[in-house]
């Protein structure tokens, strides 16, 4: 213990809180609803296994989607079906992200405290990386992460 790493990786739970929706939607698009959940679990368990060896915590969503894409291909191979085009994950990521949130969710976002609301908006509606959110809001990158995380936690409680 007391190993010094670079900037700490966020607790894995935060990755789940932030990106589980994106990953599940991505997989649903590619392998269909029936297999998506299995692929989702394989993705997240593989990510959890590998997580401590990651060098840094930038673009964790991209990392998760790369794993998800691999699991989707595996799933097609296993079922003997021909894979859909999985080359351009980034296009799919944009599509998954652009799915308009429903009115109820926007209302809940609107009720968040200002910093959280702006951080969540920049992160998910604007698809901005944390360092940029930090600069935009004149806060530290860690504070930006925290605002997004706290915002999502609140939303999750409200949408329950």
């Amino acid at each position, binding site marked *: *213990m*007391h*190993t*010094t*790493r670079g900037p*700490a*990786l*966020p*607790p*894995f*739970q935060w990755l*789940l809180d932030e990106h*589980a*929706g994106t990953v*599940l*939607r991505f997989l649903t698009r590619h392998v269909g609803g029936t297999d998506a*959940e299995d692929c*989702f*679990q394989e993705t*997240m*368990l593989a990510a*959890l*296994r590998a*997580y*401590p060896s990651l060098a840094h915590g930038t673009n964790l969503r991209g990392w998760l989607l790369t794993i998800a894409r691999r699991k989707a291909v595996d799933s097609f191979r296993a079922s003997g079906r021909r894979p859909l085009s999985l080359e351009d994950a980034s296009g799919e990521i944009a599509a998954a992200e652009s*799915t308009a*949130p*429903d009115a*109820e*969710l926007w209302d809940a976002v609107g009720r968040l405290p200002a910093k959280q609301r702006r951080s969540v908006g920049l992160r998910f509606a604007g698809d901005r990386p944390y360092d940029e959110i930090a600069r935009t809001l004149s806060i530290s990158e*860690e504070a930006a992460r*925290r605002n997004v*995380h*706290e915002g999502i936690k609140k939303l*999750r409680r409200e*949408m329950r």
Partner: protein
Amino acid sequence: MTTSDIAAVRRATDRVRERALAEGLIDIGYATLDTPIGRLLVAATAVGIVRIGFEDEGDGPLIELSALVSPRIMETPGRVDEARRQLDSYFDRGLRQFDLPLDWRLVGSFGRRVLGRVARVPYGGVESYGDVAVEIGHPRAARAVGNAVGANPMPIVVPCHRVVRTGGALGGYGGGLPRKRFLLELEGALPTSREAARSG
């Protein structure tokens, strides 16, 4: 993101949690508990309780654990069920002595000696920093003892609130003095504020 998406995501992540637990992939499991002194974060490794955080510390303890122990951290209420049961009973004035496996990895060797001694101060009692220093064989190290007590990563369960200043002043507390006072009043080591007002 729609409401039904959110339900599907929750279902899927719940199953990830179950499988990750079964496969031993979660290095630190945590849950939050509502108590009379605010929300507590309780985090445990496979060895035992490793960190208890007060509400004001926010996500600090999780970030610290991620850096110092492992980032494989997930919310797993099951892992801290027994701690929850004992803490609930303690705050209900039932339990007087915690019996929980502890993971001391966040504490250095001097701190372990200090906190090991602190853990033996009985319910309802208090001891001074100087007393603890004498008992661990470092009579002149009261200040270092104070620091070690203040750095206790497992407050309440390791009852550092029972260490006070010589002469009766409360001294400090990581969770803030009102919490220390509350705990000592709960244990009957201090007259409650109402009793104090009556007798004063």
